[in-house]
């Protein structure tokens, strides 16, 4: 039996507001296998970002349990890499220094990780930009730096919170291809949050579908498209079948009025 990279049991999160509580997550349960690419798709307000923040140890749940690789989450941990919607680069650091930020924070020794940093930058096609500053790069390039930074300390898994949401459609498709390539090369568990149904189907082995108020997982869909998937896969009937099915779930549950 494969080890479970992520295990979530009856997880709830309640936000208290002036007029009572809002259930961002209501007793959701799922598991992710080691090396699996799982996408969570849902409209805004369905609690998917809350879920990621809990997994990253940035928020504590109101109920239930969540564990990564067999140990309960008790706060931020060093065996994960997180990518946010914005690149969140530090403008006073060069590209290379931004990539090495986790190494500096965790005191792992720059020299030891320098070759890895350069290899990773080469992997995302930014090798010749390592001495540049963030403001000299385009949005897509900045997000690639952020992905490189999340990979530098060789974490067992990547948590990605709508990482391409702020990019234009064409850059986004290109980044999807890049991410698939990186994932196939690195074989890390990826937990990927998005509000784009095609993006989820294109990238993931499994898609968890969430609906809001209260945040629930309403479907757990295995995507059986062969890899590597070219962009053309989006025009195949199978792909259309998956996206139609997911969209149907939102319409039934009224999730898209958000």
């Amino acid at each position, binding site marked *: 039996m494969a080890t479970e990279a992520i295990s979530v049991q009856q997880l709830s999160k309640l936000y208290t507001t002036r007029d009572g509580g809002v259930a961002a997550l209501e007793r959701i349960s799922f598991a992710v296998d080691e090396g699996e690419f799982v996408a969570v798709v849902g409209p805004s307000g369905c609690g998917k970002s809350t879920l990621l923040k809990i997994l990253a140890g940035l928020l504590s749940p109101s109920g239930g349990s969540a564990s990564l690789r067999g140990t309960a989450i008790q706060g931020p941990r060093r065996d994960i890499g997180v990518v946010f919607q914005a690149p969140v680069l530090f*403008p006073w650091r060069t590209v290379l220094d931004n990539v090495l930020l986790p190494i500096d924070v965790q005191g792992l020794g720059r020299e030891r990780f320098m070759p890895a940093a350069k290899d990773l930058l080469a992997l995302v096609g930014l090798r010749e930009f390592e001495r540049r500053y963030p403001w000299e790069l385009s949005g897509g390039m900045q997000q690639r730096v952020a992905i490189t930074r999340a990979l530098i300390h060789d974490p067992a898994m990547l948590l990605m919170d709508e990482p391409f949401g702020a990019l234009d459609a064409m850059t986004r498709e290109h980044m999807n291809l890049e991410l698939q390539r990186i994932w196939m090369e690195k074989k890390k568990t990826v937990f990927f949050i998005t509000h784009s149904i095609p993006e989820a189907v294109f990238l993931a082995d499994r898609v968890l579908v969430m609906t809001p108020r209260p945040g629930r997982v309403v479907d757990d869909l295995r995507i059986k498209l062969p890899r590597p998937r070219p962009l053309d896969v989006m025009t195949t009937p199978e792909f259309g079948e998956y996206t139609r099915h997911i969209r149907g779930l939102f319409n039934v549950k009224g999730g898209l009025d958000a």
Partner: protein
Amino acid sequence: MRSTKNVALSVVLFCVSVGAWEALVRGLEVPAFILPPPSQVALALWRGFSSGLYLQHLSHTLLETLLGFIAGSALGLVLGTAVALSRPVEFFLYPYIVMFQSLPKVALAPLIVVWFGLGLTSKVINAALIAFFPLLVNTMVGLRSADEERVSLMRSLAASERQIFWMLRLPNSLPFVMAGLDVAMIFALIGAIVAEFVGAQKGLGMLIQSMNFNMDVSGQFSILLILSVVGLLLNRGVMMIRKRVLFWDPSEKERIEQERVSA
């Protein structure tokens, strides 16, 4: 803007206005103790510098200003950091700091001179007290303005609060701190001059006052001229440091690019 044509135009503009001032004062026979003609101001300037008198007082005022600037900025930085990092410090100390700030500090100068004497110390302290507040406020705001997402990123890396401070909050506050230094520099000069007015043995402020007693208006004009040039140079000095430190700041970058384009 800095084309040869514009530079020439600005020189012409300067000469015309100085010439008009000279002509008006002479034509209307304005007495020199009301408004001296520029030629007399220039003469006073030349006499003051050639006798070594101005240089001696100028260096004294500069010393007071710089020492006051350094002391006040350091105090502002330390207190601003303490207020930004510690809620108790903010709660107990900040109201008094604001009260102290709303007090016109010029009014404190006589007291400070009584306490610390006619020498250098009272001037430095007065300059420091005036220079300290912009640093305090800007340091505080700068340290607190770190982007939430960047803080989240640091936390997701399991960074300690100390690391978040050194790697994120401190560099993030630098644009604010530099803006504070900009203001503090000029404030320090004002503080030094005001304290010299109240009572001093040396310095340009004291010189202005003694000239005033002697109705030497062209002399006073010449010193005002020196002070404005000194202020400008001090400001330029801070700006040069700022450009070095904030090479990464987008607003700074725009300014550098604009200068590059116009050069």
